[in-house]
């Protein structure tokens, strides 16, 4: 079922209403700019001045219909609830200011307090501004993950549970349905099926924990973990493997964690923050599955263009990014886990 979302709302008008609602009568919008446009999600930075002073906020809203049966993504209200729960558990999550309702006229959306820092992956890996803090980032990421994973999932959110064998089934089904024939993806499926790790207790996962979805401050490092729409229940090593997947290292394959750090620091940070021991080979399993997953996702994005669902020129070009995952996978298969 596709939820009924009017995607053509006037966001600026909605922000003016929100300024009044949150800032009191006479509050006025002082800034509003769209930061990014994903295919289905919009982010706006805006500020207002009201009775209680100035506020600098971020609006995150769904801009395309959401089909919960055909996606791993969670509703934005669930995202907001998870951010609040993990934040209360000590994780560096943004602060939720307001979850939008019908009166706001913005569809599915919520507001966060703006956090200073940088999310562009390439800046984190290569900008000299981050040279000083870069050596501690992998460890901080391990700590952040341990805090997220230790958070009891709030009841009633209907989060999906995922394990390695289930993920392989799911992505192989998607791959087969594309009709593509790619020998490296085939052998990656075969290899990973033969190396599925022993089951462990499943925990709350961020689900998209990678360089690009984390706000880093040039002095303090991890400032806030963003983009929770793929949160689910699963193997802790899934989140650790995803930030080690080379597609998110931005030109620094020599630094396996996000293009900024080493495996040992990620694992040490995780353990220091109370996380259970995790074998490196388990992280490497999920990292390899991460490359395979990204490859299959790229194929899917191309297909959404071929089938006329999406019309942006981005989509077919993302299809050619399957090649990067093949170049990574073949090396990982040669190295072994």
């Amino acid at each position: 079922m596709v939820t009924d979302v009017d995607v053509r709302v006037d966001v600026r008008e909605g922000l003016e209403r929100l300024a009044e609602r949150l800032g009191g009568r006479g509050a006025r919008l002082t800034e509003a700019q769209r930061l990014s446009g994903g295919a289905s999600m919009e982010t706006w930075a805006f500020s207002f001045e009201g009775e209680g002073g100035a506020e600098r906020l971020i609006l995150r809203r769904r801009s395309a219909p959401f089909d919960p049966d055909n996606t791993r993504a969670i509703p934005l209200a669930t995202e907001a609830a998870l951010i609040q729960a993990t934040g209360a558990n000590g994780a560096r999550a943004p602060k939720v200011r307001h979850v939008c309702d019908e009166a706001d006229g913005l569809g599915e959306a919520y507001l966060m307090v703006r956090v200073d820092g940088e999310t562009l992956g390439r800046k984190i890996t290569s900008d000299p501004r981050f040279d000083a803090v870069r050596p501690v980032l992998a460890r901080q990421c391990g700590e952040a993950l341990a805090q997220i994973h230790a958070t009891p999932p709030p009841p009633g959110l209907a989060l999906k549970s995922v394990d390695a064998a289930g993920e392989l089934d799911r992505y192989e089904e998607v791959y087969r349905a594309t009709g593509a024939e790619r020998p490296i993806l085939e052998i990656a499926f075969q290899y990973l099926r033969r190396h599925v790790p022993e089951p462990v207790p499943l925990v709350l996962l961020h689900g998209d924990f990678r360089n690009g979805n984390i706000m880093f401050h040039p002095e303090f490092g991890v400032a806030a973990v963003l983009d929770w729409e793929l949160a689910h229940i699963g193997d802790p090593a899934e989140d650790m493997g995803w930030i080690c997947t080379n597609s998110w290292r931005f030109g620094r394959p020599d630094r396996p964690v996000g293009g900024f750090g080493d495996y040992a620091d990620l694992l040490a940070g995780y353990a220091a923050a109370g996380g259970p021991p995790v074998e490196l080979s388990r992280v490497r399993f999920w990292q390899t599955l991460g490359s395979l997953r990204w490859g299959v996702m790229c194929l899917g994005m191309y297909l959404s263009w071929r089938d006329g669902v999406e019309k942006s020129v981005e989509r077919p070009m993302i299809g050619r990014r399957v090649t990067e995952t093949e170049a990574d996978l073949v090396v990982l298969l040669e190295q072994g886990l």
Partner: protein
Amino acid sequence: MITHPKTEELVRSVALWLEQIRPQLDPRNAFLARVAGNALATVERELTQGPAAEAEAVTLMAQLLGHQGDFEALNAELCAAIRDGRFTVETPGLLPALQTMARNQLAIDQPNYRPEGASARP
């Protein structure tokens, strides 16, 4: 084939024009114009490097499978051999052949990508 201009030169001329108009576009369209330029650059590389890459893939797959064939047929047979378990990561020569094919395709699709195991960008 006509060589004045060559096909890849026509493609490059459109890519250059996109670069020229990009500063006048709004941010979203400027971004999409950059993606479109990258698409044209990929087409240009496929036109110039594609035939050699495909020829090498055909040679490597024919060696692995023990008989000749065209790219599509060999590729399908190789996928089937992996799927049904006849070929695995232990199969002599398989991973090095796949590695060569992947690198050739990467040079066409994403020449700036630094794959797993590579050094940092110089």
